[in-house]
């Protein structure tokens, strides 16, 4: 239980870093993101092309593979949803 929790927080740190670095957001701003912070549709920096960059960078950093049919509005809706999705793939 403790191992899973630690792993998830590492995934969360990675997702924060990727959003900051790819979208050009400050670390301070990304540090304020909570599970409910809306992403796709709310962040102007996160347009559909940036989505591709974010997902590919997450793949590279977490060593995961994201299939095209897994990419939908739900996993990009909030910061929490994206972290949960990434953790689900990374911590198998």
């Amino acid at each position, binding site marked *: 239980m403790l191992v899973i929790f630690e792993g998830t927080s590492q995934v969360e740190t990675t997702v924060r870093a990727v959003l900051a*670095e790819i979208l*050009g957001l400050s670390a301070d701003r990304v540090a304020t993101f909570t599970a409910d912070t809306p992403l796709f549709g709310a962040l102007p*920096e996160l347009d*559909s*092309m940036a989505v591709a*960059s974010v997902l590919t*960078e997450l793949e*590279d950093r977490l060593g995961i593979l994201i299939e095209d049919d897994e990419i939908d509005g739900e996993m990009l809706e909030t910061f929490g949803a994206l972290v949960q999705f990434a953790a689900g793939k990374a911590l198998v």
Partner: protein
Amino acid sequence: MTGLRFDTYDWHGGREAMLRFGPESGPIVIAALPLFEEANRTRQFTCTILRALADHGIGSILPDFPGTGESVVATFDATLADQRRAYSELIQRLGTHSYALSIRSGALLDTDADLTGRWHLAPQTGADLVRDLERTRAAAGKSDRGDEYAGNRLSPEMLAELRDAVPCEDGRYRVVRLDADPRAANATYAGAPLWRRSEPGNDIALAQQLAADIAHWIASCEG
């Protein structure tokens, strides 16, 4: 004379433009930008590295390849084979110790040249590049746009070549990555992946660190 100047080089298929920095004697660094959109995002950064190399007394060239930059060859008519050939013929004509400085998919262009060494920053395989292109196209909601990928029309031949293309790691080889990249590297540096941003950017501190890395490595190869 370390100032930027324009020049051209001839290869079997035509003439292409190139930038030169630093001295024209001694070991020369040949910079290869990534293919397609990442080239725009990393050009200024790469030029910063080359200027810093000139400060280390090392000359460099940033060439266009057929189908890239100012080339009159249309993107759709570009092939990886032609780009590699132009690269190789440029090296041949220089007739000096030449070192590749290849960034991301630029590492797919230096494979056939008679180089003294290759220095790669975050090299990308052709298969990963094609996956990136297809994902970007799908994200833009245009998965049935035939031969267009994120604004670039690519020939089936080019796509087939890219799918099989891998960087060359033979001989004197050094691979450097950013520290968030878990893949094997001879050294890692802190920095954000400029090639993934939506707008061109720069990282002067990182460029200077990388130039120092290259300069030290070339000195060890030459020594």
